[in-house]
C-alpha cells in the first residue's frame, strides 16, 4: 500500500492544478467573448469594403494593368502566411495549423514552386524553424493589444513584396472559428485579388473618381488586404481561446477524476493502517494475558 502522506501531498498538488486549469478556462472564455465581439464589430467595415471591391473590379474588368494587386502572374514565388498563437496550452490548436500549413508547403514545393513562409505568432516560428522552412517574415507582438493598425502593418509588408515582384501569390493559413469545440484550418488566397463578378443593378452607373480611378484602387485594394488579414487574425484569436477553453475544461475534469481516485486510495491506505495498528494492539494484549 502506498504511503499515506505521499498520497495526501499528491492530492493537494492535483487540487492546485485543477484550480489553475479552471482559472485558465474562465479567462479563455472571457477572451473568447471579446474576440467574437471584435468579429461582429468589424463586419460592416469588411462587408462594405468587399462590396466596393467587387463593384470596382467588375467595372475594371480584367484590365490587370490597372493595378499591380490585380495582376495575375505565373505563381512561381508563393508565400504562406501562417497564423499561430503566442502561447501554448491550447490543445491541438498550434499543432493542427502547423501540420496543415506544412503539408501545403510540401505540396507546393513538390510542384516546383519557390515557397516562403511568413509566421504570425511565436508557436508557428518554432514549428517551422525545426523543419527548416524558409521563413522570410516573422511578425511578433501582434496578439497583445491586437488592433487594426497592426493588421495594416502586416498588410503593408505583403503588399510591398507583391508589387515589387518578390511574390506571385500569397495564401493565408489560419484557424477559422466554428465553435468553442471545433475550429477548422482554412487556406485562402489573399493575393492576387480574385476579380469578383457580382454586379448589382444599382452599380451600373459608374462613379466619378476623386482624384482618379488609379488613386482609388491604390487606397482600396490594400485596404482589402488589411481587412482580410485583420479578419483572419480575429478568427484565429477566437479559435485559440476556444481551443484553450476546451482543453482547460478537459484538464479540469481529468484533475477532478484523479482527485477522486487518489482520495479512494488514501482512504484505503488509512484504513489499512488502522487495521494493522489494531492487530498489533490486540496481539500485544493477548501476549500479556498469556
Amino acid at each position, binding site marked *: 500500500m502506498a504511503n499515506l502522506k505521499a498520497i495526501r501531498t499528491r492530492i493537494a498538488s492535483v487540487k492546485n492544478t485543477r484550480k489553475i486549469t479552471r482559472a485558465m478556462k474562465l479567462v479563455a472564455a472571457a477572451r473568447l467573448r471579446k474576440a467574437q465581439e471584435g468579429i*461582429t*464589430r*468589424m463586419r*460592416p*467595415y469588411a462587408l*462594405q*469594403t468587399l462590396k*466596393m471591391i467587387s463593384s470596382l473590379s467588375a467595372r475594371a474588368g480584367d484590365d490587370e494593368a490597372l493595378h499591380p494587386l490585380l495582376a495575375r502572374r505565373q505563381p512561381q514565388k508563393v508565400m504562406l502566411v501562417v497564423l499561430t498563437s503566442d502561447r501554448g496550452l491550447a490543445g491541438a490548436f498550434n499543432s493542427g495549423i502547423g501540420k496543415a500549413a506544412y503539408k501545403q508547403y510540401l505540396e507546393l514545393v513538390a510542384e516546383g514552386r519557390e515557397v516562403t513562409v511568413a509566421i504570425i505568432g511565436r508557436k508557428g516560428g518554432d514549428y517551422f524553424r525545426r523543419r527548416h522552412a524558409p521563413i522570410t517574415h516573422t*511578425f511578433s507582438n501582434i496578439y497583445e493589444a491586437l488592433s*487594426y*493598425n*497592426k493588421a*495594416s*502593418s*502586416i498588410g*503593408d*509588408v505583403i503588399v*510591398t513584396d507583391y508589387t515589387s515582384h518578390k511574390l506571385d501569390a500569397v495564401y493565408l493559413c489560419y484557424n477559422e472559428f466554428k465553435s468553442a469545440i471545433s475550429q477548422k484550418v482554412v487556406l485562402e488566397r489573399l493575393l492576387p485579388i480574385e476579380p469578383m463578378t457580382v454586379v448589382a*443593378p*444599382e452599380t451600373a*452607373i*459608374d*462613379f*466619378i*473618381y*476623386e*482624384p482618379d480611378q488609379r*488613386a*482609388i484602387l*491604390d*487606397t*482600396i485594394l490594400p*485596404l482589402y488586404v488589411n*481587412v482580410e488579414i*485583420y479578419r483572419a487574425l480575429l478568427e484565429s484569436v477566437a479559435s485559440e481561446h476556444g481551443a484553450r477553453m476546451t482543453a482547460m475544461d478537459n484538464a479540469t475534469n481529468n484533475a477532478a477524476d484523479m482527485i477522486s481516485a487518489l482520495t479512494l486510495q488514501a482512504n484505503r491506505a488509512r484504513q489499512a493502517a488502522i487495521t494493522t495498528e489494531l492487530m498489533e494492539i490486540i496481539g500485544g494484549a493477548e501476549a500479556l494475558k498469556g
Partner: protein
Amino acid sequence: MAQDKHEAKSATALGLQIATPLGMQLDTEVESVQVPSVAGELGVLPGHVPLLAALKPGVLKYRKQGQTSQVAVGAGYVEAGAASVRLISEFYARPEDVDIEQAKQDLAKAEQRLKAFTGMLGDPEHGEAQRELDWALARIALVAS
C-alpha cells in the same frame, strides 16, 4: 429603379454612415457633409452624383438640423450617392473622445519612431508609426478647430 425612388423620397436628406474596424460609428441623417479627401475638402449635398474618393486623415464636418458637428476620421474612402454618404475609415473620434494630451504624446512618440527609423521602406514599423502620426495630427486638428 430602386435608386430613383430613394432619390425622390429624400431629396433634402443625406444618410451619413461611418464604419471603422471597431464597428459602425455613426449612422444618421444629415443635410450636408464635408469630407477630407486626398484631393482636398469635398462637400456633399443631397442629390450628388455617384462619387468615390480616397480619404485623408483629417476632420469631417456635417450639418444636421442647422448644427455643424465635427469628427476626426482616418485613412479610407468615401462613397457618395444621391441620398447617402458612406465612409470607410480606419479611425473615428468625436471631439469629446479626444484626449489632447494623449494625442500630443502619441504625436511625439510617432515622430520619435519615424526619426529613429533606419530600416527599409515598407517595413511594418514605418507604416505603423506613419499611421499613428497622421491620426494624432487629425485628432489635434479636430480639437484645435
